[in-house]
């Protein structure tokens, strides 16, 4: 099997270059969610450029749509989009590569960007697919700051009501949002209990930036029957370089040239280390 752990770092490098080329982006959340995306797009999901219109494909919704640069990097590497084209045109005048998912592009199912939308939409997808007798799965990735949106909890209620065991929600629990620590902004210290109380099977992943742990969680989610699964992945915002790790100010900071060089050096060193 391809070395996916090293791949996650190579894709972080591409993410960084997309951000630098476009002069904007949400770098912190891009870096924290990368292993989740790699686990899904390289291991767990039945999705490829060849079957992207097949109704039996697995469906993915990036509810934390601001992490779109990481998503671009993954979709480019998987052959849905052209990396050079994305890099050249991201955020540029008239570009289809906007700062949030755009479902007029190959590989992107729904437009998102306003938080709290993805879970209800994923509930509808999972329900519709089950009504149509399909055996596919639906995945939705949310941020932890996003959980303050009431619509998320409406989605938790309906996912449980309809016993959607073909639905898996992932919370990228990086503990930071734009204003600071999530626990200072709107606390969810008992997050696991809260989601479990809504009737979901909850899997806590100690290190959501460890690909093996994420893959194990996704495999467990597939075995959970009669209820939907929520994976709470503890991650590090800005994962990959001490320049940006665990710093709220890096929510959407665009690196200076000096910062860029240091981050790229750190990412490459980590990629190399993992390639051995």
């Amino acid at each position, binding site marked *: 099997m391809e070395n996916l752990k090293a791949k996650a770092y190579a894709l972080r490098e591409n993410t960084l270059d997309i951000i630098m080329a476009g002069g904007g982006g949400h770098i912190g959340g891009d870096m924290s969610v990368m292993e989740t995306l790699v686990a899904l797009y390289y291991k767990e999901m039945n999705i490829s450029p060849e079957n992207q219109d097949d*109704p039996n494909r697995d*469906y993915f919704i990036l509810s934390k749509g601001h992490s779109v640069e990481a998503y671009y990097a993954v979709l480019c590497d998987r052959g849905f989009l052209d990396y050079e084209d994305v890099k050249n045109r991201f955020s540029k005048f008239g570009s289809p590569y906007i700062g949030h998912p755009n*479902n*007029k592009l190959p590989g992107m*199912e*729904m*437009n*998102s*960007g*306003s938080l*709290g*939308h993805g*879970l*209800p*939409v*994923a*509930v*509808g*997808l*999972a*329900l*519709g*697919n089950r*009504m*149509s007798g399909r055996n596919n799965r639906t995945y939705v990735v949310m941020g932890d700051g996003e959980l303050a949106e*009431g*619509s998320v909890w*409406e*989605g938790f*209620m*309906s996912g449980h*009501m309809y016993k959607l065991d073909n639905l898996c929600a992932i919370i990228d629990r990086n503990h930071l949002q734009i204003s600071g620590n999530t626990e200072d902004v709107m606390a969810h210290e008992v997050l696991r209990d809260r989601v479990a109380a809504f009737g979901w099977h909850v899997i806590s992943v100690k290190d959501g930036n460890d690909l093996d742990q994420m893959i194990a969680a996704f495999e467990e989610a597939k075995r959970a029957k009669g209820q939907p699964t929520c994976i709470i992945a503890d991650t590090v915002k800005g994962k990959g370089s001490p320049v940006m790790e665990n710093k709220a100010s890096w929510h959407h900071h665009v690196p200076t040239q000096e910062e860029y060089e240091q981050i790229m050096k750190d990412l490459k060193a980590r990629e190399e280390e993992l390639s051995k």
Partner: protein
Amino acid sequence: MNKIANRKVICDVLMEHAKTDKDIVVLCSDSRGSASLTPFFDTYPEQSVEVGIAEQDLVGIAAGLAKSGKKPYAASPASFLSTRSYEQAKVDCAYSDQNVKLIGISGGISYGALGMSHHSAQDIAAMSAIPNMRVYLPSDRFQTRKLFEALLQDEKCAYIRVGRNPVEDVYTEESCPFEMNKATLVREGSDVTIVACGEMVKPAKDAAELLAKEGISAEVLDMYCVKPLDKEAIIRSASKTKAVVTAEEHAPFGGLGSMVAQVVAENCPKKVLEVALPDAPVITGTSTEVFNYYGMNAEGIAKKAKEALGI
């Protein structure tokens, strides 16, 4: 007097089609009774989705169902559907281009004395402002049927507002001219143009008869398709008459009146007056009492037409 509400007709049409089209799904937010959709839920439970009192979930789920290939019809009181779930309508339905039909029931001031929380006097403005969202307000039960037969054939999202109570017929079983996205010419005339939508079409038609008795010839357009607005029909009519009056069960801003005035000002400038709800919480009462109070009836529309003509 007709006893069949437009919402009942919607249920009938959906049930007729759901028999053979298993992709039709009806969603309610504890609103199946108000929407007259209980028979659908009872007959096609496997094509029905209840989400509880949660409009954001309602519309988000509907969009997900559409993405999976279903044809969702989400029904909820227009007041809540057009505001609480406005963002889901914008992002999940219109922006994401999903085939979701949003049915705003008990629209306008149907709920009468229940107050402003239950009135939807802003839904035309709100929904029309969303790119890629269509807005329809059918006038009677015959047109409601024709409209839903047409909507069942397309794959774009739309917002449809109907009232709670049965309304008097504008058309007949035998004669209900209908072309999708084209205004219906209810009556030809040469002095004044009256453009109305939804429940105001019947009073507009009656107003034309009152005006005829006074020797004033009024043309009446049923603009059930508020968006896409049938601009050609407005220009055609307003170009030959001396003034225009609009009638709608909506706030005075951003609704049919504003849209018609925009078209007339740009293409064939002349006076445009509107009959609408006030920019205020409406007076307490049944919808008929409220309509009469604000002149939203045949007499009021006729009076406004004469005012527009300077009579």
